[in-house]
């Protein structure tokens, strides 16, 4: 039986990307349709086509928050997959394999051979191999055949002629395991009783794109780059039918400037990219800040530096998002922390861009962008949209309009071309209230302050939005602070740690500029150690905390414990558990023992 009855991590490995991915994609949808929650992970081969691929599906009765620590089941489609991954299969775990190609030794695991190759040969339909395996997985995990048939029909239905053979393959796989293993099925995950809650199943890139659409985005310009391409492709498919425009530009500089032009002309506009592309956008980002053009820029972070590892994950563009630009170009920076959150943060991003007329950077990451998660249903009616402040049209007031009026909040009414008599030039040089170039020391001071004032205004607002999460034991002396997609692993770790009686509390922020200062300060009260898990080497967020809250941190003797990870992979709960235990040992003079798996 699984060490955790509520979830199972199933890893599938084999040659040829498409096959494995099909098995995984179909299987998780069957699981989801059967009332389970899913959370996936996959790797990408070095070769363009073919090459070894892993698709991992964690399925659970309750929401699954991370990839977990170890795997409960391994699905090996070839010997390589067995060799590569058997070491990570938990003791007594489930081994499922194509008995035609894999010949495992007696290794102490529960073996489930499935004659995938043989069955497909019998059917004279080698393309159906994947579905034989899906059938076997469905059968072994006790999922309903009808759900599986539905998924296959809806996903592969367009090849109508092949559908009967596909369904037959599925059935044969299922029947095989029912016949042979009915008396020794691997750990089962019964869907929770009662009505199955509404769930959507999608990737982070899809959630972000849907959020943009719901936020009113009507212009998208972008340049392909892994792992942000999916977002562009989604927009290309779905924005035009809404009357929006999508352009694949010649490069990232064109992408961001084209979006700026569209925004200037009145559209809610965005671009999305990954680190190398974001680096190219730095000059224009400053221009958007200076000209006060609303703009949303998504950076789906990947591991670097430079071209780096395009298919691996990291949280290491934080400094670039916060600070890059010549001189000081205020921007806002948000970071969704789950697939679901990608949707809502995009709504916030567009709203903030419009409200404060400035660029908003949204930091996603490769792992979150590409994984499939089941997420709660979205209530579109609860979404409130914000539009930019516009001047009262006043045709007779020709020449009186002040685009960059120095207001208390820093926000000035923005005319849209086409409005009669509100002429102005969006100006990248330092400028007067009317937008005319002006280099006087007084004006530069005033405009610098105006631009920064908008961030202060946003800071006020942000305290009242759901931009941070605090959970755990409020009396804890050990805290965990972080941002972005590591949150799921932290949530899961917290549950385990709490079970081991260590008190711990966590704080995650989804807004990095502005920081929700009051909430952070109140969290810091009473803490003695703060663990900051980050997918980067130098601890960027830890740096931000240490600078910004240095007084609280040092006065109260809080130890900031960097927990850096820079290997291209997401955090596992165990990484967090270990760090908490280590902190607990140090703080409590050895009352707690070093963490061991299982705690």
């Amino acid at each position, binding site marked *: 039986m699984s060490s955790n009855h509520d979830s199972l991590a199933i890893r599938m490995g084999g040659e040829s990307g498409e096959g494995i991915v099909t098995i995984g994609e179909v299987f998780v949808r069957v699981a*989801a349709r059967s009332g389970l929650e899913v959370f996936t992970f996959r790797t990408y081969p070095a070769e363009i086509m073919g090459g070894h691929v892993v698709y991992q599906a964690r399925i659970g009765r309750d929401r699954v928050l991370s990839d977990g620590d170890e795997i409960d089941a391994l699905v090996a489609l070839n010997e390589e997959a067995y060799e590569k991954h058997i070491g990570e299969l938990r003791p007594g775990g489930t081994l499922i394999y194509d008995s035609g190609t894999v010949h495992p030794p007696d290794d102490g695991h529960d073996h489930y051979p499935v004659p995938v190759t043989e069955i497909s040969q019998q059917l004279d339909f080698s393309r159906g191999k994947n579905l034989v395996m899906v059938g076997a997985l469905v059968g072994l995990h006790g999922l309903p055949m009808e759900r599986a048939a539905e998924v296959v029909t809806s996903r592969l239905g367009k090849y109508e002629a092949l559908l009967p053979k596909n369904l037959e393959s599925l059935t044969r796989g299922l029947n095989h395991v029912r016949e042979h293993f009915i008396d020794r099925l691997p750990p089962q995950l019964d869907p929770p009783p009662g009505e199955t809650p509404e769930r*959507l*199943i*999608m990737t982070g890139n*899809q959630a972000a794109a*849907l959020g943009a*659409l*719901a936020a*009113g985005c*009507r*212009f998208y*310009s972008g340049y392909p780059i892994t792992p942000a391409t999916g977002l562009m492709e989604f927009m290309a498919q*779905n924005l*035009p039918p*809404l*009357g*929006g*425009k999508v*352009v694949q*530009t*010649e*490069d990232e*500089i*064109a992408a961001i*400037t*084209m*979006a700026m*032009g*569209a*925004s*200037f*002309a*009145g559209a*809610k*506009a965005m671009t999305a990219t990954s680190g190398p592309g974001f680096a190219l956008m730095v*000059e224009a980002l400053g*221009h958007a800040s200076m*000209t006060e053009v609303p703009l949303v820029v998504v950076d789906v972070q990947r591991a670097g530096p430079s071209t780096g590892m395009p298919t691996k994950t990291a949280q290491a563009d934080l400094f670039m998002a916060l600070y890059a630009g010549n001189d000081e170009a205020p921007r806002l920076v948000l970071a969704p922390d789950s697939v679901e959150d990608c949707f809502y943060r995009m709504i916030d991003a567009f709203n903030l861009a419009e409200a404060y007329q400035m660029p908003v950077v949204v930091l996603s990451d490769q792992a979150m962008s590409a994984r499939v998660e*089941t997420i709660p*249903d*979205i209530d*579109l009616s609860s979404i409130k*949209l914000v539009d930019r402040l516009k001047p009262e049209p006043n045709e007779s007031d*020709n020449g009186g309009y002040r685009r960059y009026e120095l207001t208390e909040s820093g926000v000035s009414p923005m005319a*849209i*071309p*086409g*409005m*009669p*008599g509100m*002429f*102005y*030039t*969006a*100006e*990248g*040089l330092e400028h007067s209230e009317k*937008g*005319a*170039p002006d280099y006087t020391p007084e004006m530069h001071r005033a405009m610098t302050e105006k631009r920064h004032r908008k961030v202060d205004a946003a800071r006020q607002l942000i305290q009242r939005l759901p931009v941070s999460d605090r959970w755990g034991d409020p009396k804890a002396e050990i805290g965990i602070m972080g941002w972005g997609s590591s949150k799921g692993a932290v949530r899961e770790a917290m549950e385990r740690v709490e079970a081991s009686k260590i008190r711990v509390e966590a704080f995650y922020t989804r807004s990095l500029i502005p920081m929700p200062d009051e909430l952070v300060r109140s969290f810091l009260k009473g803490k003695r150690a703060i663990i900051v898990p980050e997918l980067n080497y130098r601890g960027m967020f830890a740096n931000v905390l240490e600078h910004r809250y240095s007084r609280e941190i040092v006065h109260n003797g809080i130890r900031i414990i960097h927990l850096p990870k820079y290997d291209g992979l997401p955090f596992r709960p165990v990484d967090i558990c270990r760090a908490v235990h280590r902190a607990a040992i140090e703080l409590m003079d050895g009352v707690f023992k070093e963490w061991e798996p299982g705690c």
Partner: protein
Amino acid sequence: MITTKVNLKTKDLKSEVKPIWCPGCGDYGVLNSVFRTIIDLKLDPSHVAVVSGIGCSGRFPAFVNAYGFHGVHGRALPLATGVKLANPDLTVFVVGGDGDAFSIGAGHLPHAARRNVDLTYVVMDNSIYGLTKGQPSPTSPVDVAVDSMQRHKGRRKGMAGMLRLAQADKPVNPIALALGYDASFVARGFSGQPRVLNEILKTAVLHSGFSFVQVISPCTTFYNTYDLWRETAEPLPEEHDASDRAAAFQLALEPGRRYTGIFYRHERPSFEDQVARLVAEPTDAAAPAAISGLLEQFRR
């Protein structure tokens, strides 16, 4: 193209901001021609946007009583493409220098051209970097060092070195370039010949698609080529068939000839029209029905 019934005068189009150009700069002539074009075509200034990059010429938008966007160096074309796509009602002028167009911005020109966005791109070509004070540009002739040493006033030692090095670079031929890109309207004017220039600009604005207009706009301070162009500019041969791209290319290469006029034009659907064909009618911002339809596809 949104027009007005009001009879505009130049003074209505002049903004409060006084041009910072040197006396005699060719850019004044271009500014006047753009005013003339707006007046003659009765364009409604509220529906005119002037987009630029950086350079002496890039300062242009601020001088016009219309909407303007002063972009960063070299990015006027994508900026303007965004403006036009988001609001196809606008008449969009893109203006800038030879450095902005052919040097730092050189990567955008082929794409604006092939997309055939309905923009009128006026490259104010003085064969020099004006704003940064006299370095060679991609259109500087190889003898720019000699030439401009003799002519320009602001001679500086370091620049002499720059100009000398420029002798290693063959200049680009903007007309040949634009023809290589298949821009659907390719013309050359000279700011010292306002009548010809006005005609070209009007035709360019009326052309539905991307119009590339190289305007010789001499820099009186760093590289004064007024005399050269006054003396040698000549209209394109009357028999030239402007629909013949290869013939236009040949004329563009003719050594020693300085033609003005429309080298090439060819109507094909503009980018906006093509995109519009592929796009539904705009829905209102929230479009909850459409979005919730999309969400359905993701229901488990």
